[in-house]
């Protein structure tokens, strides 16, 4: 048996609502046997030391995860480790002969009797053990003897092991009433830390989280309020590192408004997925090695701050109408391939004869041009340089409201146009078309693209 005792992190930041066990979840990734005894976190690592690469490597890992604390004690039994940790915390050096010379005050169960024992000249564990057992049992109770035996390792010690709950759901009381959503971030990040421990213990990654907040008021301005408000937080890949989720949460909360002051928040995991541990490379990364965040994180961060519809990807369609050739649509994180995107493979596009005349920019929707003396004008008359390129398409469709600008009263999506490359000194090279369906009217010319 090999026990490691660490100071418990919960004592410096009391978080009402979060069970103290939640602060020990992180340790479950090192060993399945973790216990909380008084103010310390105890981990039994004799079965997992080899897995972590030896005792020293394991201690280094624990140091890193314990949040910067250097205090750490190891001993063959839990109570010895705890006693050593208490000595270290008090700033005292460890006695030479362990565990004989450990002071009696380091054992919790002995503390009530420490004074009377001291009067008898009995100050250390070894001195207490040397006393006759029947007399000690009569005077101080058998519990003291049992603790001493457990501390020595003579009888088995079965502390209450820390267990991970099946589902993650935590509630936390807020230290004060909060009326702006941004102020929830700090409290929520504490819950996210607990979540990270839970996820690591279960080797899972979070896919969907739900953050809820409890309103302090039942009704506000005569309007009945629901008891809870909340929002969902989604990510594409199962996430175990909280930095990304925390950033998403911050952006989302910045756009949220609370209906009433909030006194409690709750965090639930709705959906999890198995997470793949990345294997580290043996070689140091070269300069060509890509570093940075993965694409889906970037996309989610954009979407959280700017709105999902502002991040767009494009699909190409086989069509003659330029506005239908491409479709800029909000980029979905787990994008299924668009049904018609397969209609036009990239190879045929590159060799398309029409591609010669395509401009790099579209003016969408097409901008009507003034006509002077039968010539289209855009900051001066335009010279038609190339054209016409004529097509008739879309008769098979119903008119869409977005396309109604150029099609007038036409009931179908029919488009008959003649495209020209036009030029004048003021605007440079542009792509314009003449709508043949409106040819009899005055405004039949439209600007549809720029060459630069």
């Amino acid at each position, binding site marked *: 048996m090999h026990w490691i005792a660490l100071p418990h992190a919960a004592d410096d930041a009391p978080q009402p609502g979060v069970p103290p066990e939640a602060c020990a979840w992180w340790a479950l990734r090192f060993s399945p046997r973790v216990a909380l005894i008084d103010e310390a976190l105890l981990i039994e690592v004799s079965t997992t030391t080899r897995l972590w690469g030896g005792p020293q490597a394991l201690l280094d890992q624990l140091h890193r995860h314990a949040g910067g604390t250097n205090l750490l004690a190891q001993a063959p039994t839990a109570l010895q480790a705890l006693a050593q940790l208490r000595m270290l915390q008090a700033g005292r050096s460890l006695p030479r002969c362990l565990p004989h010379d450990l002071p009696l005050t380091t054992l919790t169960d002995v503390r009530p009797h420490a004074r009377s024992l001291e009067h008898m000249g009995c100050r250390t564990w070894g001195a207490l053990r040397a006393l006759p057992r029947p007399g000690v049992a009569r005077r101080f109770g058998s519990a003291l003897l049992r603790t001493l035996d457990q501390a020595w390792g003579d009888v088995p010690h079965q502390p209450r092991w820390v267990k991970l709950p099946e589902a993650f759901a935590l509630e936390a009381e807020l230290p004060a009433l909060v009326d702006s959503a941004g102020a929830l971030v700090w409290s929520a990040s504490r819950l996210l830390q607990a979540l990270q421990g839970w996820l690591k213990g279960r080797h899972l990654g979070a896919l969907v989280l739900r953050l809820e907040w409890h309103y302090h008021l039942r009704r506000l301005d005569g309007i009945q309020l629901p008891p809870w408000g909340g929002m969902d937080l989604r990510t594409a890949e199962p996430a175990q590192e909280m930095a990304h989720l925390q950033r998403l949460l911050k952006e989302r909360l910045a756009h949220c408004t609370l209906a009433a002051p909030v006194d409690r928040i709750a965090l639930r995991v709705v959906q999890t997925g198995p997470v793949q541990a990345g294997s580290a490379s043996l070689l140091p990364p070269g*300069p060509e090695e*890509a*570093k*940075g*965040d*993965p*694409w889906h*994180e*970037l996309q989610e*961060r*954009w979407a959280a*701050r*700017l709105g999902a519809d*502002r*991040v*767009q*990807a*494009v*699909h*190409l369609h086989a069509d003659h109408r*330029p506005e239908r*050739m*491409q479709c*800029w649509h909000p*980029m979905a994180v787990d994008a299924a391939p668009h049904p018609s995107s397969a209609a036009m493979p*990239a190879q045929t*596009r*590159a060799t*398309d004869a029409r*591609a*010669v*005349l*395509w*401009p*790099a*920019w*579209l*003016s*969408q929707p097409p901008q009507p041009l003034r006509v002077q003396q039968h010539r289209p004008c855009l900051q001066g008359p335009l010279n038609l*340089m*190339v054209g016409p390129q004529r097509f008739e398409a879309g008769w098979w469709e119903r008119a869409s409201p977005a396309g109604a600008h150029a099609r007038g009263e036409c009931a179908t999506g029919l488009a008959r146009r003649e495209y020209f*490359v036009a030029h004048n000194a003021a605007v*440079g*090279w542009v792509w314009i078309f003449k709508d043949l369906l409106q040819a009899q009217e005055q405004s039949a010319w439209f600007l549809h*693209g*720029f*060459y*630069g």
Partner: protein
Amino acid sequence: MSALPLFPFQTAAASSAQGRGVCDVPGVWQGSAWADTLQRTRSSGHAALDVQLPGGGWPQGAMAEVLQPLYAVREWPLVLPGLAQAITEGAAGRVVLVAPPYEPFAPALQAGGLPAHRLCCVQATAQQAKEAAWASEQALRCRDVLAVLAWLPQAQSDALRRLQLAAAQHGRWLWVFRPDTQREQSSPAPLRLWVQGRDAQLHVHLIKRRGPPLLEPVVLPLRNAALAAVLDAQARRKRLAQEDADRLLPSRQSPIAALRPAVRRPDAPGASHALDRTAPRRG
């Protein structure tokens, strides 16, 4: 007392320069020489521009600021060949457009060598200059991004500085397009270009680069070769039609009489018109 040297570095450099004739202190270069080409670059696809760019191409991990007149959208002829070349050479990653002024026409870009599925567009209105700068910076920090093209007409200097830092840390291509009214202002970009269009040509002034100043602009074609050929063909056709019309013009008063010389018969100029001949008698 004035015996204390005011510029110790300068005197040290001067003494070493005197000693060896050439200043070879690391990190110090002469005005007429290129800076250390530690910067990784990729070819811009324009041979004329590659010669003048430090390191022989667009810098990876540094901001290239492109200044052009407002509403003159000449980015793609400048940038697209380099991107297409990088993609054909197997560069992975996406091309992110932040706050483009118009809708990019993806089929045309694909025909130019930039596949549509590599494109990603982040829309931002002109009022959201800060958001656009933020989105560009986030994109630079992503490992699946090949290049960022940002239109930031109103970005402040500190935002540009952050962008330059992010690009330098992560080694991405970054072009920032700004109006040429910002030409006089200082900028953290190590490479600044001022683009002017003249007819069918693109005059690129390198107003800032890590190297000797360039007084003459670099001249690039504004349109790709295929479109230029089509335009030439159309122009030639028009010119011929015009010549025909000119030949018609002096004798417009008697069009029937003028018909005969106007019809071009390169094969037999002296032969009479077919209508003048009598039909061959049937035997």
